[in-house]
């Protein structure tokens, strides 16, 4: 235990308004804490100074999964296990179920939250690629008000987010895929469970009249933040299923990513395997 425990203060608001008050009164003074599965690791390892924490875990307004005709809405505190256990998520957003299942192991899934996975802004997080592929939106709140941002505009660089210091992620809205959909998710981790991603690719396509009417690819561990593969998407969107330009799209994908060498993998491996997984996805799509 390398964190200085006696130096830490914690506030435990039970309403969102209370929490936002604290953040507004001392912007940047209190660090939000949800499931703690990222924060506590840093803190225990002495990689985060002692400080002041705002425990969000008792705020009921941030919990729960809601559903209407067009959208699934997740409170920021929704855990991976809750996503895994929810039949609607299985039905509409299978990639999100796969990401939740692929995250850590059960004890982490019981505790880690979707809001935390997003706001931790790790390039290696496993739900963001799925959220990007599904075209999710985030609800951000502060005393100044509530706003909605497209998730693909939220991450702006390594640990850079469109999130003000007095703001919280309140919820995540994901449009329900309509019509004939194709869902693909593959995480390549350091092992089969309890693993951090070396790379991760999620894709969603809507097929209409034999054409790719909608197509998004979300990528993890391949750029300073979770990103969409916009160039590769453009090569596929609108094309007939029977004439997907696999090689060209693969090449375009290489321009979408900028992986690094780190202790988990290499640039070269990430590039080659991303291209392979992408191709595998397109082959499955072609047969969808």
């Amino acid at each position, binding site marked *: 235990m*390398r964190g200085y425990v006696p130096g830490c203060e914690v506030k435990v608001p039970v309403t969102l308004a209370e929490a936002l008050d604290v953040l507004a009164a001392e912007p940047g003074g209190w660090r939000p804490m949800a499931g703690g599965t990222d924060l506590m690791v840093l803190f225990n390892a002495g990689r985060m100074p002692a400080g002041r924490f705002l425990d969000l875990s008792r705020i009921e307004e941030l919990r729960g999964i809601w559903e209407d005709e067009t959208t699934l809405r997740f409170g920021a505190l929704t855990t991976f296990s809750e996503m895994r256990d929810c039949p609607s998520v299985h039905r509409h957003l299978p990639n999100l179920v796969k990401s939740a299942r692929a995250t850590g*192991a059960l004890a982490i899934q019981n505790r880690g939250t979707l809001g935390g996975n997003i706001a931790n802004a790790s390039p290696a997080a496993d739900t963001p690629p799925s959220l990007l592929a599904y075209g999710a939106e985030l609800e951000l709140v502060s005393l100044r008000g509530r706003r909605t941002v497209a998730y693909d505009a939220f991450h702006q660089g390594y640990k850079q987010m469109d999130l003000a210091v007095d703001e919280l992620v309140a919820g995540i809205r994901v449009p329900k895929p309509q019509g004939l959909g194709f869902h693909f998710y593959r995480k390549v981790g350091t092992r*089969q469970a309890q693993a951090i991603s070396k790379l991760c690719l999620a894709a969603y396509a809507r097929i209409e009249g034999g054409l790719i009417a909608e197509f998004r690819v979300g990528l993890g561990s391949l750029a300073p933040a979770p990103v969409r593969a916009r160039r590769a998407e453009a090569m596929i969107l609108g094309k007939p299923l029977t004439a997907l330009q696999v090689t060209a799209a693969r090449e375009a994908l290489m321009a979408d990513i900028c992986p690094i060498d780190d202790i988990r993998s290499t640039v070269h*491996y990430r590039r080659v*395997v991303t291209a392979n997984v992408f191709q*595998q996805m397109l082959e499955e799509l072609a047969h969808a």
Partner: protein
Amino acid sequence: MIGIPAIRKEGRAKVLGRARYTDDKTFRCLLYGATVRSTVPRGILKAIRFGEGIPWKEFTIVTAQDIPGENRVAAIVKDQPFLVEVGGMINHAEEPVLLLAHPDRYLLEKARRAVILEVEELPAILDIQSSLDRAQIIGGNENIFKELRIEKGDPASVWARAAHIIEGAYRTGAQEHLYIEPNGMLAIVAHGDHEDQVTVCGSLQCPYYIQKALMNLFGLPADKVRIVQMETGGAFGGKEDYPSLIAGHAALLAWKSGKPVKLIYDREEDMAATTKRHPSRTRMKTAFDEAGHLLALDIDFILDAGAYATLSSVVLSRGAIHAAGVYRCSNTHIHARAVATNTPPSGAFRGFGAPQSLFALERHLDVCAAQLGLDPAELRRKNFLKIGDTMATGQVIQEKLDLAGLMDRTLQEIGYTEKRRSFAVINATDEPIKRGVGISVFMHGCGFTGSGETYLASVAGIEGLADGRVAVLAASTEIGQGKDTVFSQIASEALNIPMELVEVAQADTKVVPDSGPTVASRSTMVVGRLVEDAAYAFKQALIQQGFLEEPYTPELFREAVRRSHARFGTVKCYTQYHKPPHIEWDDQTYRGDAYPTFSWGCYAAEVAVDTVTFEVKVEDFVAIQEVGRVINPVLAAGQIEGGVAQGIGWALWESVEWKGGRMVNNQMTNYIIPTSVDLPRIRVAFLENPHPAGPGGAKGLGELPMDGPAPAVLNALQNALGNLRLDEVPMTPERLLECMEVACG
């Protein structure tokens, strides 16, 4: 009692959560200890400064200057200091420099970070090649801690006439033990008028190693240094030599503060600072005749010992002796060196050098088989050792040995022939998953190498207790392998009484004699045999004293022990190891009987490689071995399964990443050991062939399972993917990709 699946003695306490590990014990007025380490791999320690904002007066602070005895860890060579002194050399980046203790563990950590070391950095040697190149001379004799040659016949005379000469170079990386309980020690020092009394309890494998180290550190006699093993949460060799340092550090803090001190490493510190398996590099040159008979073997075997000599000389010996494997070869040269680098010292790890050299040989044979156009199993079959053959050291195989039978059993179990045939068909299609099967055949020498056991002259005993039960007295430690259970089985068999009447004394230097360290697959075969002999002697004593007559019931036995105890007080019978007359070994020439006997294994792995991601899954694993008589089949299988898991981990994932001489992936999240979903059900079987040296015919088996998996897995990969240069472990997906690209040009 021998041969039955007796239930683990201490198992109940373990499943109840009541077993007491080091960190579970506490004292009043306890201080927590911490270690300040160098962060540069090589340099001169100029000064130690204490930063601002810490109430230093509240701290117990120990530097090299405080050490009452000799500031050197007593090992084979005394080259490693407990603490680097000001003006002294720093030889690796995790070298201990200063110790701190305080009752508040949170403040302690703050203080640890506030110590500033002024170091004049010197150029460091960080790998085997730079050490051999001698750009800097950093230790040993011109960077060599140990060099040895094993010579039989003359390979040079063969090259010219051989039909095939095949060469290869193989590498293995460092491996972290990753016992789930990190290292830790608790120390108490009672200040006496003349001499202090030092007591250390902890997580450890070898109480008498630590006792010796602390006697030297404090300048105290043996009876003033007491070492007690607590329940130990895994060791695998990782708690063999490094605990001497930790125990010394805890004891120094306790000695200076006059209070009990607990020094527990957290995972990051344990991984960064404590020992690892020696990285290795092996070059093989082999000659075969037309038919595939092995004519000559020339092996150059090098281990990276790290910064200090520690156990490297004996790890090197074992590695070198195993390098020629289970094959007959009249012309064998083995040249072995352990070299110095400025990395934390490498140490003992299950297998002790043999997994490294056996990986090279067993991998090389599959490369050879491909070049010779033979099936790997058939190439091996042509060359197996048989009774009457001599090994590289000149040791003659005297026991019944049927390696072909062992191999056939394994081949049949895994379905080798059918699988190789059917996989070849599927692998030729564009199916992205490629499958293969591979095998390895190997041996592991039981007990210490060469004259090791003779020098150790271990002792074990049996004591009669007041209540009529008996206690086994041995310094062998229970580290999860089941030693307590096996020893009680051995004693109860010899005494012909139920196991409940046998207790196994805690490994406490005040209570048990020096039975040597718990290493080298020696506990069951060597110490177990001493226990067996002591038990016979104890029974004889009871008979001679007139308390017991054969045949007897357990009740009569118990009564006899009670009466003997009432009459004579404690009765203890000890036996000591004596070298069997037929065993000869020469430490200078490396000729003779390297081990009293060997255990033998043939393992087979079936793998599936995903050519999209280069991930490898071991889908089936068969581990068949001949280990003499199996004393407890359930515990024995558990040892094999765990060893195989470690071997598969080493083969595929377990990579220590170094930067500037420091391990940088020293967290569990970044050092990848297998989880339950990464492994197949490991299938284990034993072929029994009782051996006269061991108790009830048993041989050693703790290390054997580490030797076979890595070559079997990589050989299976070769079968799946064709002839790639798969010459390194761990074969991570990143490396496999590179190998496949090299093969494609």
